[in-house]
């Protein structure tokens, strides 16, 4: 039996319906990604008990908590806007949810947690004096201090600057690894999800599209939506490449290779060859060029180390990295 399971939970709004089922194992780090409005945050609210589902059940450790009060669920949450309590100093915030009653031990524990999140000596600081990154680390310490069975993160890094985000996400993952806490982490940043998660759940229009580990999600997406949501790529009608085939073919730009000379398909039986591609654009991104090509009127994206000198090129892609998607 999985540690946490959401079974057929549904929540109807005026113009939006969320319906989701998924499960996670104890100690797992699951990210939920999806476009804005796909229901990621709503799903978290339902799990935390901030909102109640219309139907379905949520279990933790085999116990049904669907009707359990928000206070009794043992689920802590870290919010996008940090949500530190302005009426208390940093230390008090961390001690807020502690089960320990003894004052000295509470103090000892909060000092230890401050050290864990890299804020040693910040205990007496007024929370309004903290920077965004510091505030979110305090919020993280506060969540851990409550000894929850699961910590939910609702886009915790969205309000921070990009360099800080990278630093903080590694702190979050590090704490997860050392304490073995079960984490559900909502983000709209794919790179962030790839970097921190054991598995990734993709949502769209209130539904769970797929749950996979990061590499599989990127290399073997099972729909065009997931494919494009998790990175760049090219989709072409399948019949352009293979006779009598339905659906679309999909490949990532780094899998493709351009050739300025004409390639004959017969010479490359293990590749898919696209001839007579027109170069439309070449964007330099530092490590490489991202070429925008046009193949029979369809856009094709290819990564190249140099800018092609000709306006017409051929493209070859290993057949085993070409996906056929419905």
């Amino acid at each position, binding site marked *: 039996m999985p540690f946490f399971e959401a079974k057929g939970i549904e929540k109807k709004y005026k113009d939006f319906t969320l319906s989701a089922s998924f499960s996670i194992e104890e100690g797992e780090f699951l990210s939920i990604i999806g476009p804005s409005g796909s229901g990621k945050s709503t799903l978290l609210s339902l799990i935390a*008990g901030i909102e109640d589902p219309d139907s379905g059940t949520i279990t933790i450790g085999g116990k049904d908590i669907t009707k359990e009060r*928000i*206070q009794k669920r043992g689920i802590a949450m870290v919010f996008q*806007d940090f*949500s530190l309590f*302005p009426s208390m100093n940093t230390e008090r915030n961390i001690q807020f949810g502690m089960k320990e009653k003894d004052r000295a031990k509470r103090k000892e524990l909060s000092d230890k947690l401050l050290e864990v999140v890299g804020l040693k000596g910040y205990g007496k600081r007024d*929370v309004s004096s903290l920077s965004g990154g510091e505030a979110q680390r305090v919020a993280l310490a506060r969540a851990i201090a*409550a000894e929850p069975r699961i910590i939910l993160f609702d886009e915790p890094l969205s309000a921070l600057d990009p360099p800080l985000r990278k630093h903080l996400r590694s702190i979050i993952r590090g704490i997860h690894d050392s304490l073995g806490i079960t984490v559900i982490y909502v983000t709209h940043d794919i790179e962030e999800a790839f970097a921190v998660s054991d598995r990734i759940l993709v949502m769209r229009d209130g539904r769970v599209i797929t749950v996979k580990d990061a590499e599989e999600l990127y290399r073997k997406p099972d729909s065009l939506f997931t494919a494009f949501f998790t990175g760049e790529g090219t989709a072409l009608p399948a019949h352009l490449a293979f006779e009598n085939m339905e659906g679309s073919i999909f490949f990532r730009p780094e899998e493709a290779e351009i050739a300025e000379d004409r390639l004959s398909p017969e010479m490359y039986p293990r590749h898919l060859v696209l001839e007579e591609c027109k170069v439309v654009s070449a964007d330099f991104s530092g490590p490489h060029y991202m070429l925008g090509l046009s193949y029979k009127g369809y856009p094709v994206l290819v990564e190249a180390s140099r800018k092609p000198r000709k306006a017409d090129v051929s493209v070859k892609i290993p057949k085993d990295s070409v996906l056929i998607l419905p």
Partner: protein
Amino acid sequence: MRKKGSGYYLLKAVPAVLLLLLLFIIPILLIFSNAFQDGGKAILEVLKDDYTYHLLSFTLRQALISALVSVALAIPFSAFFSKYAFPWRKALLTVSQLAFTIPTILVVLGFVIWYGNNGYLNNALRTMLGVSYTPLPVLYSFSAIILAHVYLNFPIAFALLTASWSTLPETQENAAYTVGSGRLRTFMRITLPRLRGSLASAFILIFLFCFSSFAIVMVLGGNPAYSTLETEIYRRVHVSADLVSASALALFTFAVNALLLAITTPGRKARKGERRERTLKKAKGAKMLEAIVLSFLMLLFLVPPIAAIAIRAFYTKDGIFSLKAWEGISGRGFGLIGGSIDALITSLVIGIIVALLSVWMGSSIAMASAKRNSRLLPFISSLPMASGSVTMGLGFIFVTSFIFTSLGIRSYCLSLLSVIAAHLVIVLPFSVRTITPGARMIPDSLSNAAYTLGRSTGRTYREIEKPLLAPYRRKAFAFSFALSLGEVNATLMLSSGNVETLPVLIYRMIGNYDYQGAAALGTILLAEALIVFAVGEARWRKDAVL
């Protein structure tokens, strides 16, 4: 959408809502039953009487003119204050906020002392011009009513207009200039339409306020020809002792007031938008001169009547320095002034009780309406605004006499309680309106964070939400206290009993031409109002957290 734990807040608001409804509905019902005592004859008479419509048209006319003049006068001042920065800009804006809480009786008193036929202004002009007649016969006329209303409301229009004008980015105006539009055309075609909302809401606020104005019309009009609906209700109760016809007229006024409120409410919708202040230009050279001139003009209009009160408190009618009034206040006086200390204590006690209750009721109603996203609760709490305070006073006369006839209790305590109840009903809408923005500003995630960390709704309110509400509660306390301290209409209506507050005493002393005594008491009232205002406006360090 309802938020988690909203049931708790609703439950907490129930006593406050019930008390409010009780204190509002019972007096109104008693007015109803009195008006219909003779099978509706009194109502029919009021409706058929030409005089009713004469009163209505005069009431509307004076309110309309007062509001128009106040707002129109504020436009040039606001235009400058929302564009240029100079050292004393903030101070003047703060002072203009004072108009929201200054007791009207002080305006009445200040006008009598400054603009009166034997007032400081006319005396000075007489000496300067060497004439014996009154050079500026302002008082006891229609223009006196308008002037006093403008005096009281120009700062309000100025404060509201400047606040919203300061948040309008100038990009549209600049865009108009770049395509060759002149200053005047740009103002008329671009700026004015953008200000429409705030102009309208300032106008409506002032119009409604002047519609129910009482003390100013009563004293400064000084002529039955200048009767408004409210003063006529008062006259019918205290001069003609005709409670039935007063009730009928009160009901008519109530209906008109409710209608006006209903018509104007959509126009007063709070504008959503960025709260960003635009960057002000530093006033230099000619603009600095303009700043000095405008500020001087404003102070020249606003300061003398109030300053005159404090000066007059130390001088007799003939301009001789005397501490007579102060001796009178300190307990050695005869007549009205002998009751000063009692009135002062009564006012403070009533003010504190009213303010405490209104903050308690205001916070619980504001929290419940924020948590439940309720439209009903704000509506209920603004109900008392549909009735003028004189009408409210009339209702409480009936309540008091009802309790007397049915229970046989007649005591000072009962009168005191009815004054407190009347003040509370009048003050509560303002308290709810002051606290509600604070309640709505508490982020959901903050409360949710506390819930997920195991805190109950009640403890979350006490530990997390209430501290955030503190500055709003303090402001509401100061506002309520100041309004109660300055309340004269309902109190005067009710105090045929024996509760005498400071403003009522001042009102009576003006009636007895004891201006020095009134001025001395007025100085005390002014000092109190200023202290309360300072408490409400001050920003404690702890407030700056959100």
